[in-house]
């Protein structure tokens, strides 16, 4: 019934006439989409344009060159930045996957004293994000002697309330009979979680992984504060410091090449897994 009416609805929509108002709206939105894209197009253009044309925005007929990228590659330890960022993202994801699975399971399946209180306490992390607590957290990291370490940059993110709630929602949709059957077969909790739940939670890990990875990849203020050693810097911090050095000379092709280096991995992933990304981000936040 619903399927049929949905189909009729679609047909009716197709039969709608293109009114002048609608035409204007479409025209406006297409223009807007193109406007939104211009900064990216320009970024890529300037990263690959021969340096002498960097300010000639409308120049045509040039051959793309890697010379900007090779030039800036030798100006800062980008390789280090990449490795540090990758280690940071991997470290945060690895620990979050463990902590959110355990906590998510507890909230979804167990009935225990203090559940509601703990649940509210977990919510605080979403309300008052780590971004706001940079000063007290910096003091903690200093007291732990973790300044200038990637561990220090990662640690405030080892637990994730958002991930916990995402896990909890998903685990709740998994039939409890599966767990009971495993228990009857003599599985302990560890085996139940790793062998029954883990495979079913893979989409959830991907969704949370994409959100957490892009957050960590893009995080700036916190790693800027914690890490001072140039060799330990992350991509965003390296980019900011590089851009500030070249800003005065208005070296657009340098800045653009560096910016592209920083954003390319996430954007390329996004172009390939567009749907996955958008779906995952639609789950971000507690819904």
């Amino acid at each position, binding site marked *: 019934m619903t399927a049929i*009416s949905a189909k009729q*609805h679609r047909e*009716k929509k197709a039969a709608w006439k293109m009114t002048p108002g609608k035409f204007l709206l*479409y025209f406006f939105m297409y223009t807007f*989409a*193109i406007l*939104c*894209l211009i*900064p*990216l197009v*320009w*970024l890529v253009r*300037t990263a690959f344009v021969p340096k002498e044309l960097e300010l000639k925005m409308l120049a045509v007929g040039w051959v793309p060159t890697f010379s900007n990228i090779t030039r800036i590659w030798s100006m800062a330890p980008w390789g280090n930045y990449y490795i540090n960022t990758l280690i940071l993202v991997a470290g945060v994801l690895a620990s979050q996957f463990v*902590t959110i699975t*355990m*906590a998510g*399971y*507890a*909230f979804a399946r*167990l009935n*225990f*004293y*203090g559940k509601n209180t*703990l649940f509210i306490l977990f919510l*605080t*992390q979403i*309300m*008052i994000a*780590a*971004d*706001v*607590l*940079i*000063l*007290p*957290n910096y003091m*903690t990291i200093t007291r732990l002697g973790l300044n200038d370490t990637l561990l220090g940059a990662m*640690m*405030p993110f*080892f*637990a*994730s309330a958002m991930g*916990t709630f995402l896990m909890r929602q998903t685990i709740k949709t998994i039939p409890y009979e599966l767990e009971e059957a495993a228990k009857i077969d003599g599985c302990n909790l560890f085996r139940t979680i790793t062998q029954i739940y883990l495979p079913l939670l893979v989409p959830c890990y991907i969704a949370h992984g994409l959100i957490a990875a*892009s957050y960590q990849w*893009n995080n*700036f*203020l916190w790693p*800027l*504060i914690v890490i001072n050693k140039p060799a330990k810097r992350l991509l965003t911090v390296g980019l900011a410091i590089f*851009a500030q050095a070249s*800003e005065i000379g208005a070296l*657009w092709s340098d800045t653009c090449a560096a*910016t592209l280096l*920083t*954003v390319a991995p996430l954007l390329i992933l996004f*172009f390939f897994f*567009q749907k996955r990304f*958008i779906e995952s*981000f*639609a789950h971000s936040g507690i819904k």
Partner: protein
Amino acid sequence: MTAIVNDRSAALARERRRMWRTTRLAWMLLLPSFIFLAMFTFYPIGYSIWNSLYKDNNATIRTGPVYIGLKNYITLFTKDQIFKQAFINNVIVAVVTVPISLGLAIMMAIFANKVKIGKGLVRVSFFYPTLLPMVAVANIWLFIYTPGYGMLGYIFNNNTWHFLTDPDAVLWALIVMMIWKQAGYVMIFYISGLQNINPELYEAATIDGANGTQIFWRITWPMLMPTTLYVMIITMTNAFKLVDHLYILTKGGPGNASNMLLFYVYQKAFDQTNYGMASAITVVVIVLLLILTCVQFFTQDKRTFYA
């Protein structure tokens, strides 16, 4: 009689023992998360409140922090012009970016849902700013706003626009950038909100001869209300959290015309080493965020939390 009571109390005791066993297990499972939350969310909130009552800056390095009660707050709210400016700026940013982002996002979502030609590209062009770090966004927009040879100056052949150094223009220039950055993120919540609206509603409306405007205001908008409330809070809290771009673009200037509370915390703590004041500002931000979340909690259907 006594036997039954004994039976019942025995059953109760058994039940309680079982509950405690589950509780122990649950707490063990929650412990790793709890430790990190305690260290980096609960403790720092408490520490900020405590530290905000102390004079803790360069002058007190030798003596250690000196207790001064609410003096930091009094200074902030009565004397500190930069705090006032940053506070007002934050309010302006929230009040302006939130409705515009939401309005744009609804249009983008409807368009991205309906459009036939170039659907993928439309979604990409709306959403990709979400995935860029604020620092990269700042670099890109620095170019757009640079006088003379920046994109706007170049296209309109105008050397006199100084978007980032004019105190009257700078905040608005940053607001445009923030809207561009976050509208696509808001859009995806609306896209999933639109997909949850029963198509039969639209069908019935068209049969009754409703036009596009009526359909939007009578069906789409009210049905999207829960989404709107939800994204309103996200965008409002974002208005307090997004400050990375200031580091590149303006450093809060010119003359604090674009400063924001969180960036002011950064400046107070790490440029001026005035931890007591920085803590007080942190507490102000925490309180503001708590108020926003409480508003959300009481306006939103609780099932979205506890479902």
